[in-house]
């Protein structure tokens, strides 16, 4: 590893992307072309669980979703830092373990703060 890493090593991933995208596009186009279409007024009506819809869908969301998302981003960044550590795990040895655990310990403080404040609990 190391010096043999080149952008061409990512060719299999690119191929996988192309195959996945091609499959999705092909199936969607094929089902659109092949499937029968019987459109009636009632079928094309919008409805909410069988109840006639009223108002529109452009309503402001609750801030709670945003709080969950922003906490997700923060822990996401934490996990990203563990990726180079995992690759270098043997070389860094016990020093690396201490370094990363002190990093995680500080974030665990935030995690406990989050639990103590009941930040992700869904009461109104």
């Amino acid at each position: 590893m190391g010096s043999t890493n080149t952008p061409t090593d990512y060719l299999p991933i690119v191929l996988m992307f192309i195959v996945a995208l091609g499959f999705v596009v092909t199936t969607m186009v094929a089902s659109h072309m092949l499937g029968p279409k019987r459109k009636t007024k009632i079928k094309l009506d919008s409805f909410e669980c069988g109840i006639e819809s009223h108002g529109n869908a452009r309503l402001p969301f609750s801030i709670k979703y945003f709080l969950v998302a922003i906490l997700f981003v923060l822990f996401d960044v934490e996990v990203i830092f563990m990726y180079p550590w995992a690759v270098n795990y043997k070389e860094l040895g016990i020093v690396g373990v201490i370094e990363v655990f002190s990093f995680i310990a500080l974030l665990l403080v935030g995690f406990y703060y989050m639990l103590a404040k009941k930040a992700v609990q869904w009461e109104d």
Partner: protein
Amino acid sequence: MLGYTITQWLFGILSFLAIMFGLMVVFSRNPVNSVLYLVMTFFCIAGHYLLLNAQFLAIVHIVVYAGAIMVLFLFVIMLMNLNEDTEPQRTWLSKIIAAVAGGLMLFVMVGSLKGAGDMGLQQYGNAQIGFVKNLGAVLFKDFLFPFEIASVLLLAAMVGAIMIGKKEAGES
């Protein structure tokens, strides 16, 4: 192929796609569509990072930016009231001001890029520093202090988000 290497072809295709999706971000009327085009732009830029041998940056770009930050963007759009009648009115004055500001921005960018041709770009340091393994070795030895400080920054962001977003017990 036509005198270009595969890397040059990939660079050209990725650049074209990135610019095209970037323009779609600006031109699409629906803000949700804009965010989705921005995700595509980020994927193209991640491809550029791969071509530059910055593999860690490419992964971070996809996981954090395309994955997480764009979810935040979508939530921000959903948090806003986007009904037709609450849209801000676009008067002629604001359009003219926007055009002048955008034109000045373009002027500054063209002016600053004009001399970029003779900067004599050259490679500094190790060309393979962007690999995850090499980057990790540097990060956990030479840049250990900034790395540990980053956790304090994340902690501060976490506490701040909870303080702002969470209703206190007595608050109405």
